[in-house]
């Protein structure tokens, strides 16, 4: 790598100004982005009935620490947490894996009816879920899968979501052909190429998919609502909805659970986005 050239003082000042400006702007917008989170945490410590006072109280008075144990023991949230974790992780592995397979097939391999099948794949995203909810439920009821995790997990293992397939396809097309050609010259099969070349080069995409998959499964409400009955099978999203009544909503408890609920996601995101830092090298040469 070329050695960094010593910069002239004027250039350094200009660079510093840009950096400071960047920090200031990013910081300002960042603070605004954090307001919802502050509000959530602040409300979670408020006593009942004081959540929406005006002027807004950012520091609750009194601080009700008891909201957390109250909310967490109101319903078996640790069971909900376990269930949500099982479903989410199963879906992440199955969904991303099978989607990446299909993405590779649609982007790099030629087979008859490829365009048609890809259009069909994409079109599954275009029909609102509302109208397929009831037929799907009837179908799963016939299979006796109601009140189990199966309807929530199994479909994901069969090509997860067209969203990921499309995303994967777009990414795979940005990977240069030479890598693949070189491998084929060495006699590598498509499977080997997929596993040893495409996947390692797609770490950023896979990290993104992991984040999205985790997020959507963690927050998924409709399908657990319809398929999971027994309390010991329910998920956290369902538990959250319980707090919200028709005339009454226990906002402080709702926020307490929500806060606890989002912590794993923040942790996952923080870990996953390291993939975005380790500059992806596409040509096997110098990185960032």
């Amino acid at each position: 790598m070329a050695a960094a050239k010593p910069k002239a003082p004027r250039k350094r000042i200009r660079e510093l100004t840009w950096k400071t400006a960047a920090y200031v702007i990013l910081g300002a917008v960042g603070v605004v982005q954090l307001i919802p989170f502050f509000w959530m945490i602040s409300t979670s410590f408020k006593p009942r009935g004081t959540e929406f006072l005006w002027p807004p109280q950012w520091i609750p008075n009194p601080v009700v620490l008891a909201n957390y144990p109250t909310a967490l023991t109101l319903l078996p949230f640790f069971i909900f947490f376990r269930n949500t974790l099982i479903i989410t992780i199963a879906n992440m592995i199955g969904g991303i894996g099978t989607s990446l397979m299909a993405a590779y097939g649609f982007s790099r391999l030629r087979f008859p009816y490829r365009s048609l099948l890809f259009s069909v794949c994409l079109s599954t995203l275009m029909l609102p879920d509302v109208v397929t909810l009831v037929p799907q439920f009837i179908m799963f009821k016939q299979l006796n899968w109601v009140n189990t995790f199966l309807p929530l997990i199994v479909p994901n293992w069969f090509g997860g979501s067209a969203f990921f397939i499309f995303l994967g396809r777009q990414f795979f097309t940005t990977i240069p052909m030479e890598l693949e050609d070189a491998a084929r010259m060495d006699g590598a099969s498509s499977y080997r190429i997929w596993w040893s070349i495409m996947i390692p080069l797609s770490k950023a995409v896979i990290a993104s998919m992991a984040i999205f998959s985790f997020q959507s499964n963690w927050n998924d409400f409709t399908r657990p609502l319809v398929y999971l009955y027994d309390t010991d099978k329910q998920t956290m999203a369902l538990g959250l909805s319980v707090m919200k009544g028709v005339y009454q909503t226990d906002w402080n408890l709702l926020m307490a659970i929500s806060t606890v609920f989002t912590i794993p996601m923040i942790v996952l995101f923080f870990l996953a986005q390291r993939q975005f830092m380790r500059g992806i090298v596409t040509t096997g040469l110098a990185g960032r």
Partner: protein
Amino acid sequence: MLALRSLSGKRSTAPVRRGRLLRQEAIDGFVFITPWLLGFILWTAWPMLFSLGLVFTNWSVLTKPSFAGLANFSRLAQDRLFYIALGNTAYYTFVAVPLTLVTNLIVALALNLKLAGINIFRTVYYMPTIIPQVANVMLWMWIFNPEFGLANALLTRLGLPKLGWFWDPRWSKNAMIFMTLWGFGTGMIIFLAALQGVPQELYEVGQLDGANSLQLLWHVTIPMITPVVFFNLCMGIIGSFQIFTTAFIVSDGKGGPANSTLFLVLYLYRNGFEFFRMGYASLIAWVLFAIILLVTLIQFRLARRWVYYEQEVI
């Protein structure tokens, strides 16, 4: 065959594959998409076809569907509310999608800068997306509170008149668009991932040629990420046409005030689950499907002009 290839010198020509290799490729292709294909046939195709069949029936969900011929179509033709919903949805999509695309890109570029602690900023910018939707909407209803909310406080400070935001039929959609814009989340992350994949040498070559940052941005970065821009554009359109949850929470499921937030999916949801007309709801869903399909196909056609693919695709 191998000798021919190494002499060709062209960068992105597909190698010549004949006979056995082509067949192998085709088989491989099918094997790779088999999980998806199987899943489609098993779990997706039948419910979709079922709902297509429902278009020609009256179904209250609680009884068996009864054949109704084209009755739903004639109802659609005279349904004032359908056209209102269509207008609302089109407005929302064609305003929100371009704006979201641009803001997400700008934010992603900003978060791609080589600054210390940038990963903290990235996490912070992602936070609004992971907050449960119900909490998020409540918060925005508070921010947009016409009397005491932050939004109107800002407007007053700038000497502008206060707005009714969610509760004014003229502003409710804009308030929702603003709320969507503020959640950088998904699009931003996808752009970030894409930016990682731009080869370093291109920047180095550009710098050697004397290009400044802005020129590099326009001539190197953006063209290289066009496949992903295309993705966000398509998915943005597909998603925005189907907007539902936010509108449902904001308007208490009614699409108000005065039908200003009545979007197509919300309208069909009401028809299916509240007015016991699942057949009619299916018709609206399939009309929506046709519209989205059409728009997406147009996008794919236009894509040939501006999306740069390393390798020939569809």
